[in-house]
């Protein structure tokens, strides 16, 4: 399959994530959208890595092929850590304001 489909899918996922973050007020959905954006990037990394490996022009050494895929694992680990922290924040937020609406978090205003 051509690379452009992967890119198109990644862009669609990423934009969905951004729009979700921008428009939704529910902290959990925003959180899911952030994950969506991360995974769009992961998808791109894997796709480009595969592309380089198959490319007749590029110098396809094992390290070039595996670098990006290793990165993806890093991102996943970070995302998992983020989930742990983020969900904890959301739980604390719910305990304090009995809501997961981010617009309640405007205490810094004024």
């Amino acid at each position, binding site marked *: 399959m051509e690379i452009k489909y992967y890119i198109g899918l990644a862009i669609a996922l990423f934009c969905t994530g*951004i729009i979700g*973050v*921008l*428009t939704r*007020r529910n902290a959990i959905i925003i959180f899911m959208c952030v994950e969506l954006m991360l995974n769009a990037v992961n998808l791109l990394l894997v796709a480009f890595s595969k592309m380089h490996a198959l490319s007749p022009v590029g110098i396809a050494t094992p390290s070039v092929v595996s670098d990006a895929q290793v990165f993806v694992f890093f991102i996943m680990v970070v995302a998992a850590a983020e989930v742990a922290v983020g969900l904890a924040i959301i739980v604390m937020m719910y305990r304090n304001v009995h809501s997961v609406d*981010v*617009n309640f*978090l*405007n*205490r*810094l*205003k*004024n």
Partner: protein
Amino acid sequence: MNNVLQIVWLIPFLPLMGFLINGLGRKQLSKTFSGIIGSGVVLASFIISLYVFFSVKGGNTHVAHYFNFVNIESLKIGFDFQVDQLSSIFLLIITGVGFLIHVYSTSYMHEEESKDFAKYFSYLNLFVFSMLLLVLGANYVIMFIGWEGVGLCSYLLIGYWFKNNNYNNAAKKAFIMNRIGDLGFLLAVFWLISKLGTADYHNVFANISKLGKTDIIGITLLLFVGATGKSAQIPLYTWLPDAMAGPTPVSALIHAATMVTAGIYMIARSNILYSSDFAEITRNIISVIGLATALLAASIALKQNDIKKVLAYSTVSQLGFMFLALGCGNYTAAVFHVMTHAFFKALLFLGSGSVIHAMGGEQDITKMGGLNKYMRITQVTFLIGCLAIAGCPPFSGFFSKDAILLSAFEHNKILWGLAVFAAMMTTYYMFRLYFLTFSGKFRGTHDQEHHLHESPSAMTLPLIVLAILAIIGGFVGVPHILGGHNEIATFLQPVIPMHENANPVSSGTEYGLMIGTTIAMLIAGIFAFMQNRNFVAKENKGLGKVLENKWYVDELYDSIIVKPLQSVATFFNNILEKKGIDGFVNGVGKAVNYGSRQVRLLQSGHVGSYVLLMVIGILILFIVQLFLK
């Protein structure tokens, strides 16, 4: 001779120590102690000055170098003292008359509180220090330090009773007027340094040929501007009569005997510059200004009723005579008159102080009269002072004034005629003062009459010493035709080369002039006696009123200089300062305030909007990266 160089620094150093002791310990020291310190240091300086005087008498001149005061590449200005005949005469006048006035002050100021008393003596000592520095400095820069120092002390002492605001204004007036003159002095020194690269007297005088005509005229005129400020000449003389706000001994020391003669000293010291052929125009200006001042001040003194104001105007007038002598190129006569004037004017001021003391602070001579019955010593010494200043032979003023009149006669007959007229006015107003104060009936209140008494001996002793000096002081300058040798001119010769007579007068003419002027003085004296023997209070009309109001010069200065300056200042204050500068500064503040209030709205607290802005920012970065590369 080296001994002299080793101890000459003590002369100014001792009064400086006196200033420090009295100034720092003013709250602890008793009056007796601060009086002894204050007078003692000046006496010690006087003794050293005597020693210096006798060692330079043989014609030696020396420069004592201590350290480099200014040291910038090629420009080196040393902290040097000039030890020669001219400075030694001034040292004697300053420390000698100064000592007498210090002694007098211990009694005159005795009613002051102890710490004010010590403060007074510390100022007086600081003044003596500055004046000695002025006279001893071997270059114009050191002279300038002393020059400024005496101005400062004059300010401090005029405003000594600072609770009276009029006195403060008088002090400020004196200081500002002096500053105007000082600027001229300073410019002249810069000019000299830029042309010759040195301010040392002997280097400047040795290299005078390197100066062009413009340089000489400019420098001499600027130096003269400095002298008009310090020595109260037209147009800067009005501060001196107002300076009488200070205590009377201060008037005697600073505003009669020493500080005001600094201008004379400076020009006499620079006589080589002023004698240059190029400086003829300066000499003419000096003689005209000096004579005009002598006439103007003498005419004002005719109608003044404040005992100290009369003496103040007479000081201005006598200084005018000295400048006339300088302008005629007779520097010796000017220095001679400085010396005799220091004696008799200090005597007159101290005598007036004694009178004021007896009258309980009253200074109006129309309220005095008949004081001879109560204060014999003051009356006799005051009379001697009057005779000396009037130029009655053989009192000191006769010889010095005669020398000045003679050089004016040689120079220009019109100058001479006007100078004789001014001298006649001197005689008239001095005897008017004398008769109104001491003869006739007492015109004050009964309380004052009851209080009248002779002053204590600490005040009368200086009077007696000064009276003796006023009598014999002139004998150092007896002209040749009267069988004298004019010792002062011979003595000063190493510093002031002998005055060359362009067209010397015959001895017959000289006799004639002497007798003529003496008769003129006699007439003026008799006239004063006739008019003021019996005092009748009457209002002045016409010219008398103009004279009483000092030719309205103060009012004139007020309307052409002070008022316009004040309105300009008000304009700048209200428009430029408040609206312009303040408006700009406040405007910047307001703009930042307003701007930040608007920008603050961006921080809405909505997380969504922050994220939106972040996304927009990232998009902009992408666009820049992709398309604008």
